[in-house]
């Protein structure tokens, strides 16, 4: 078991390690793994034993446990070159900026619209990192995005070892030349990545959960370069040096959402019928609304499927939806990281609980492939919200900037 660059509880060691290991207490005044304050709990070791409730699902840590790491340096990275890319001049400009950032060990925010082709823009940067003996981490809050990125990267880099980590992944505690991971899984790593890409920095839960920021910070080696990627960065992230790309890779403008205020249920049915030949995504504000809409559409003779975050068949349902031209009712979990050719999008009750970032991301689902660069986005609402107008405004401004 290789423990270099990892920090795990000593009871997790399953195979003997023939190396001088470094031990440290697991819980002091704080949890040494996640940094939160511990709670007192009964234990065989005595009365003053504390444990951490916050990172309990990664294994219980008590005062009487120890964390273990191997202090030896990691193996050098194997250099690798990506396969042939054809980037547009805009994308090439961003890729050059990323390479410069990696050379300077600096920080960078890449603000690129949905469908700008963020993933291929990373490849020259990753190549430069691998060739200069630096370990690459691509991390994102969403497990779906991890799966999708893994597919792209295994195609692009043939020689490098690529490890993908998410809850339930087979490669637990793995460390590759390129590691693709959810932010949660970084809890087991310490100071081992030299180039860190964070995709979808503003996605839930990374946006709100400060402990996840801590996991990423602890996993990065000193002097690492940090590159954030987003289509809707927060104002806090925009204080970093920023490069902007406001144009999609196929050169068509972003589709601008239409508003329908007020709307009736019949309007939804009509909209679904007009786009009958294409896959249609319907976003609803709450999980509870999924079922009411599904039963309503069934009464109208329209079959559809639903998907939400706690759905066990989420992955298979989305995979099935990719094949067909059906209707998928979803909550905001599909707002990012999914590319569906020729999809049409409607947001039901868009005035309720959708933030402007969510609406921009949802609108960005449409027209991503070069074969279907246009499509219909409608916000159905009975009231007006700032978020709706902000989103439309933002998309229009992006189009203006991209086609100046």
């Amino acid at each position, binding site marked *: 078991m290789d423990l270099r660059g990892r920090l795990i509880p000593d009871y997790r060691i399953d195979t003997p390690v023939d190396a001088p290991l470094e031990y440290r207490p697991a819980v002091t005044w704080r949890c040494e793994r996640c940094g939160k304050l511990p709670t*007192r*709990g009964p234990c*065989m070791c005595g009365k003053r034993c504390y*444990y951490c*409730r916050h990172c*309990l*699902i990664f294994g219980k840590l008590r005062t009487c446990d120890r964390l273990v790491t191997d202090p030896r340096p990691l193996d050098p990275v194997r250099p690798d070159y990506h396969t042939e890319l054809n980037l547009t001049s805009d994308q090439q400009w961003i890729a050059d900026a990323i390479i410069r950032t990696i050379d300077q060990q600096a920080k960078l925010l890449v603000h690129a619209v949905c469908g700008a082709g963020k993933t291929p823009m990373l490849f020259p940067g990753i190549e430069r990192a691998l060739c200069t003996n630096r370990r690459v981490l691509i991390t994102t809050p969403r497990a779906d995005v991890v799966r999708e990125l893994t597919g792209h990267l295994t195609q692009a880099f043939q020689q490098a070892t690529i490890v993908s980590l998410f809850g339930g992944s087979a490669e637990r505690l793995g460390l590759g030349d390129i590691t693709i991971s959810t932010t949660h899984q970084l809890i087991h790593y310490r100071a081992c990545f030299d180039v860190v890409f964070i995709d979808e920095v503003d996605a839930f839960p990374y946006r709100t959960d400060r402990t996840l920021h801590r996991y990423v910070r602890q996993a990065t080696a000193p002097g690492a370069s940090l590159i954030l990627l987003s289509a809707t960065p927060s104002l806090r992230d925009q204080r970093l040096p920023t490069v902007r790309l406001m144009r999609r890779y196929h050169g068509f403008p972003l589709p601008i959402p239409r508003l329908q205020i007020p709307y009736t249920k019949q309007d939804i049915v009509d909209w679904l019928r007009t786009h009958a030949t294409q896959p249609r995504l319907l976003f609803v504000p709450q999980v509870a609304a999924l079922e009411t809409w599904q039963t309503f559409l069934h009464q109208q003779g329209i079959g559809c499927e639903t998907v939400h975050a706690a759905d066990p068949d989420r992955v298979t349902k989305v995979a099935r939806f990719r094949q067909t031209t059906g209707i998928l009712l979803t909550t905001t979990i599909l707002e990012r990281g999914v590319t569906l050719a020729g999809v049409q999008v409607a947001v039901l009750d868009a005035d309720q609980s959708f933030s402007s970032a969510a609406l921009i991301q949802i609108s960005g689902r449409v027209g991503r492939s070069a074969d279907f660069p246009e499509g219909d986005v409608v916000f159905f609402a009975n009231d007006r919200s700032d978020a709706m107008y902000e989103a439309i405004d933002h998309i229009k401004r992006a189009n203006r900037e991209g086609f100046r």
Partner: protein
Amino acid sequence: MNCHLCGQDFLPVWTLSNVWTRQTLCPTCKIEFVKRGECEGCEDCGKPGPPLCPDCQNWRNQGRRLVTHPLFLYQTQAKAFMKRYKFLGDTALLDVFKTELKKVKVKQDWIVPIPLSPERLGERRFNQAELIARMMRGRVRLVLERTDGVAFSHQTRHERLERDNPYHVIQPVTGKTILLVDDVYTTGITLHQAASRLYEAGAKEISAVTLFRSV
């Protein structure tokens, strides 16, 4: 305030009657715990259904009656609770049932939690039944001991009933009335085995309280 179980942020509702209690569960989690009503279901084990379930009829026929009071039914959210509390070891989560456990009227001399085998205790490093017992108002005595180390949760019902009695009494209990405490009542075999050992050792009267009754 964050819910102890699901971690969701929620606004506690304060009234005059609960200003001194700590609110630990969000309303959505709270309603998921189904309280067992006082007089419905089996009068011996509290199983929902007929007034005497076939299992308890069986025990009575053998002349081994044991009245058990489960506090809640073992359903969706209760399973989530047990997974976190017992298997992940989140012992602070038991605060959720603090008020309910304090309300249990204990007239017996001693409260006796069901013990764990030493191997299991060393692995888990706490006894979930003992923590429940210590939350109730009464004297907790650890008079039982368990010898073998077969994992509970991975056995079928048949295997459980066939098993030899692993418990034995390590302190004199002659003439005492005893309240047995366990976390989940499934077949009742555990409690009945412990009770029969205690009766053999001279205990006068035994009843039991469990946190959950599986349905």
